[in-house]
């Protein structure tokens, strides 16, 4: 059913529909509205679950870890510094193969302090062994969160749903929120067979010597790679329930004869789509929104890039001293193609800088000018830089 809802409010309702048994969180902008709304649902008796308001993100992650180990469906959400404070626990959760879902309301990482949106936080934990799904719209955030539980519980891997802070979390728009029957039909109750249970008392979190650690990592890697099937299947299954089509790994919108492609993650995709219609004069462009960053869908990306001469990777994060993060991985993936497109990699919209419609023509100018731009911060204003030492 359709509602005009703020993104955070919609996510809270969606999480509630997934019947979590334990929620633990610690407030941090811009994640707060999600947890506040969930708290209200609990307070109003609309959600029956244990809500643990912890003393830090570190404990938030630890509480949901314990909750899943004890057999409960769990949820948490955070942003920025919170994600980094959780980092040690995130590795632990995935290594122990504990399925759960968390929302990352993407935000820049300090310092200097910035409370505004970019995707540095989730990128910083890209190696933590979690499934990472990026949402372009709030509707995707709603649908992805529901699918995330199915994916997590089927693969016994944790899933991080990445939603641009403010740009999505604080935006009111018209959204379709499924009803409880739909979600129940899609998502069976959580039954975790490795749970802590006095009737079959296993020990979780053992010490693994070199003779088996490699295998544990290898198994983890294999599981995350294979999670692609689960992600695809979940999207299809959810479409059957709610009727909305969603590209599970990579969303491609083509213009037939496009020779230039732009690949990005998150809410920028919408602005680019709008801009493509707006700026008719600009050459045809194939737009791609990467939904699954972990597992990394190299094959899907190669397939989507066929026939392109140029591919622009536009990302809201930066690996100082190296450049783009996604761009580097995409470039590596494409290097296997016979005729690989030239890859131009840009960071944009760091720390909440607005990404306006005219970013689209500017990208095209930059591509036309340069012959393959390894990396640049496209919206950087050089005259604001301090004098280099």
């Amino acid at each position, binding site marked *: 059913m359709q509602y005009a809802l703020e993104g955070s409010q919609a996510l809270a309702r969606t999480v509630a529909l997934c019947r979590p048994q334990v929620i633990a969180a610690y407030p941090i902008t811009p994640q707060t509205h999600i947890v506040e709304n969930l708290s209200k649902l609990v307070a109003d008796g609309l959600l029956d679950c244990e809500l643990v308001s912890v003393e830090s993100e570190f404990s938030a992650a630890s509480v949901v870890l314990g909750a899943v180990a004890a057999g409960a469906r769990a949820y948490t959400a955070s942003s920025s510094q919170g994600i980094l404070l959780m980092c040690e626990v995130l590795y632990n959760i995935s290594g122990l*193969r504990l399925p759960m879902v968390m929302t990352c309301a993407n935000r820049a990482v300090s310092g200097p302090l910035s409370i505004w949106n970019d995707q540095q936080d989730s990128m910083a934990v890209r190696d933590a062994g979690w499934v990472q799904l990026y949402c372009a719209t709030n509707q995707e955030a709603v649908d992805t969160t529901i699918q995330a539980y199915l994916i997590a519980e089927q693969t016994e891997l944790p899933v991080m749903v990445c939603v641009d802070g403010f740009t999505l979390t604080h935006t009111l728009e018209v959204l379709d929120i499924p009803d409880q029957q739909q979600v129940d039909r899609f998502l069976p109750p959580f039954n975790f067979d*490795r749970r802590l249970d006095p009737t079959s008392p*296993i020990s979780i979190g*053992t010490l693994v010597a070199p003779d*088996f650690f490699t295998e*544990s990592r290898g198994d983890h890697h294999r599981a995350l790679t294979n999670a692609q099937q689960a992600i695809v299947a979940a999207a299809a299954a959810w479409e059957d329930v709610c009727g909305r089509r969603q590209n599970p790994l990579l969303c491609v919108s083509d213009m037939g004869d496009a020779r230039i492609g732009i690949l990005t993650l998150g809410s920028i995709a919408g602005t680019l789509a709008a801009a493509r219609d707006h700026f008719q004069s600009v050459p045809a462009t194939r737009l791609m929104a990467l939904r699954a960053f972990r597992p990394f869908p190299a094959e899907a990306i190669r397939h989507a890039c066929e026939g392109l001469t140029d591919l622009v990777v536009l990302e809201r994060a930066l690996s100082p001293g190296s450049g783009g993060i996604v761009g580097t991985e995409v470039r590596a993936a494409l290097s296997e193609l016979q005729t690989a497109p030239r890859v131009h990699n840009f960071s944009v919209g760091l720390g909440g800088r607005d990404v306006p419609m005219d970013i689209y023509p500017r990208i095209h100018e930059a591509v036309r000018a340069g012959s393959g731009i390894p990396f640049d911060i496209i919206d950087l204003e050089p005259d604001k830089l301090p004098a280099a030492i």
Partner: protein
Amino acid sequence: MGLKLTRGAFAHPATSLRYRTGSWRMERPVHRHRPAPCHAVCPAGEDAQAWLALVAEERYREAWETIVAVNPLPAVTGRVCHHPCEQICNRGNFDEPIAIHHIERWLGDQAITTGWAYPAVAPAHGAKTVAVVGAGPAGCSAAWQLTRRGYRVDLFEALPVAGGLLRSALPPYRLPRSVLDGELERLLASGIAFRPGQRLGRDFSLDELGSEYAAVFLGPGTQRSRDWDIDGATPQDLHVGLDLLKRWLDVGFVPDWTSAAIIGGGNTAIDLARVLRHAGVETVHVVTHQSLPHPGVEQTDTMPAIAREIEQAMEEGVVFHEHRGVQRLVLRGERVVGLELVHRKELREVNEAVRHVSFEGTESLLHVDQVIPAIGQTVDPAGLESLLERRDFLTATEQGRLSGAPGLYAGGDACGNHGSVSAAIGDGRRAALTIERDLQRIADPDHGEPPAITPAELNMNYFEPQPRQHAPVLPVAERSGEAEIISGLAQQQVAREAHRCLSCGNCLACDNCWTLCPDVAVLKTRHPVEDGSHYVFDYDFCKGCGLCARECPTSYIVMETEP
């Protein structure tokens, strides 16, 4: 198929049992029984610790049976023994020793009142028969040990009743006759063929016995008083201590003297002194060249009498003259009117020879109407001439063999031991065991008993101080006649007292090792295992840390280097 990783590397419960930490061990804990000091020191050979444990578990009859397996007369020894077990009891270092003799006495009395039968076995068909001469403590002990081992025993006694000096020389206030009879009657009923009124040398001879019996044990005791004179002088109306005592016991002889001096420091001297006091003799002196028992005084220099008895004699007004000798009898005609005493001591020469030295200038006079020597007795040679060759005592080996007389064995006072009832019982038992070995042609064991547990070896952190139980003692005023002076403990006192036993060198089944093993390598068993404990060490896992041994309260666990 090799080992496969589990998802997230979880592990199944208790799978660590695959990993045997026993290989870490350099020393292993073992259960090692060592005698408690009370056991090591008991002349009769009782393991008090063992039967105290049974008493603590209220298994009274088993406790009694454990005693009589060694000593057939617990009701007697519980009363008359000087119980060295209590002097050496490790608990004495902590608070007070266990009242072992009281518990032994209570068990003996319990056996009498409830009529527990001595656990004897019927003699096997064609079992050999052994002759035992003398139904005193030594004879009874030997007879019983042989009986319970399936031999036939003929027990010869000169008097019409059994008991020996227990009956003839012990005043009833120390050993009520009901108790003595109650024990002896049941003992003799255990299958011993008792032949009363049969005197050696009169009714039968050693040779006859030798030819008729597979073996002969001699426990004749000492029936003959030593000759006594001072420089050849003896009073005309000389009374000898033991005879007086016997007469008083037999016919209740009561003298009309107002004062008397008894020479000697043995139990006879003390008993007689007290009997005279009880009979109304105003002043009774005991003169001995030895010392009264004081802490720190050499055993060899102390009066052999039981300290407790000396104490009571003092309470009753008997006057003691220690380190005194009689220098001269003061006579009026042939009647004694007094003694000249002198300080006298036993001094050891360089060559260990003992010399009695009187110190000139220490003479003093003691006026009495009677002088009674009680300086001990010797064996009555009648029928034993061939063995004695006019020595005072028989000479037997540690095992009780009479040297140079195969098939003949002896024990008790007749062998000149210290005249303790318990020692006699011990002699009887050891001799009986020797007889059995000789009959079965088994060599003597050469076992040196391991040393007894010392206080330092116990872990006293696990014990609480508890006062010793005391029995009521008859007030001096009421000490006349036959009333027993020291009465017994009540049952719950006995139980409480038994629980005070530290169980030196034995398993208390206290669970300490089981509780404190960090490696769960001590396992508890439902029923006692063959070493008598309730625990086993699981050497698959024991790392040999030694905690159990260190914390064992009774030093029953010791660490041994790995074999």
